[in-house]
């Protein structure tokens, strides 16, 4: 493969940044959650890229674990969002302002 590894890492950075922007700029809780998933995936990409560079499989295993945990997290997170929706009737995070000073 002739693509320099750095390109993959930079791409991973860009995707991570886009995910962060999603977390900061969207109001829908589900969309924020999806942005977090994007972040996690970007990191997975970086891990695998470095694994390739170092000629070891640890990065891939780590990416694997990340996926598993992300799956568990999504399940719980969605359950929470549903519970919150049942209580408040909205998934707008801006509505959760109870701790304002």
């Amino acid at each position, binding site marked *: 493969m002739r693509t320099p590894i750095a390109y993959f890492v930079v791409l991973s950075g*860009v995707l991570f940044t886009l995910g962060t922007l999603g977390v900061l700029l969207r109001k829908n809780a589900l969309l924020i959650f999806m942005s977090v998933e994007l972040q996690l995936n970007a990191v997975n*990409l970086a891990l695998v890229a470095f694994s390739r560079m170092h*000629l070891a499989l640890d990065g891939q295993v780590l990416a694997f674990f990340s996926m*598993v945990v992300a*799956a568990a997290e999504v399940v719980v997170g969605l359950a929470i969002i*549903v519970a919150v929706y049942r209580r408040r009737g909205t998934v707008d995070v801006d509505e959760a302002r109870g701790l304002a000073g």
Partner: protein
Amino acid sequence: MPLDNVVFWVFAPISVASAVGMLLMRNAVHAALFLVVNFFCLAVFFLILDAPFLFAVQIIVYAGAIMVLFLFVIMLLGVDRGDDLRERLVAQRPLALALAAGFVIEIALAVRTGIGFATKAPAGFEAVNDPGNAQAVAKVLFRDYFLPFEVTSVLLIIAAIATMVLGQRKARAVTQAELEAIETTGP
């Protein structure tokens, strides 16, 4: 073969574009679908980085399970109607964009200092992936990372239980009147 180079330069823009699309979509379902496209691109990247196992897992787990869950919940809650894209927090957008730009530049600089933009992937990864990527990963996973593996399985069980608890609706206490009503009217 310069094929993998081409693959990279085709799918990289697609992945970035789909990420941006996800960000900008007002409809939540549309955004979810864009994210699925992004995951597929990433799966392809895993493939060209000599990680076919992860390529498969990415598609099956992420695109196949997680995003499906997302879509279920979106449609269940009916929040696909449309998000108000007006920003009400002062300076949130400009500041976030500025910081994001700075962040990307930092990453690039860090990479350049660290490994340099010219380093190519070293040869010899076939030796690592000796019998096949899945077997090699399995060997590492069940030997060196056995404990995390077991812990992760416990984690999954806990997540399942937690979700069940969180998803419960509280049962209303049955009143005396209701009990009598049931008895008089018969089973």
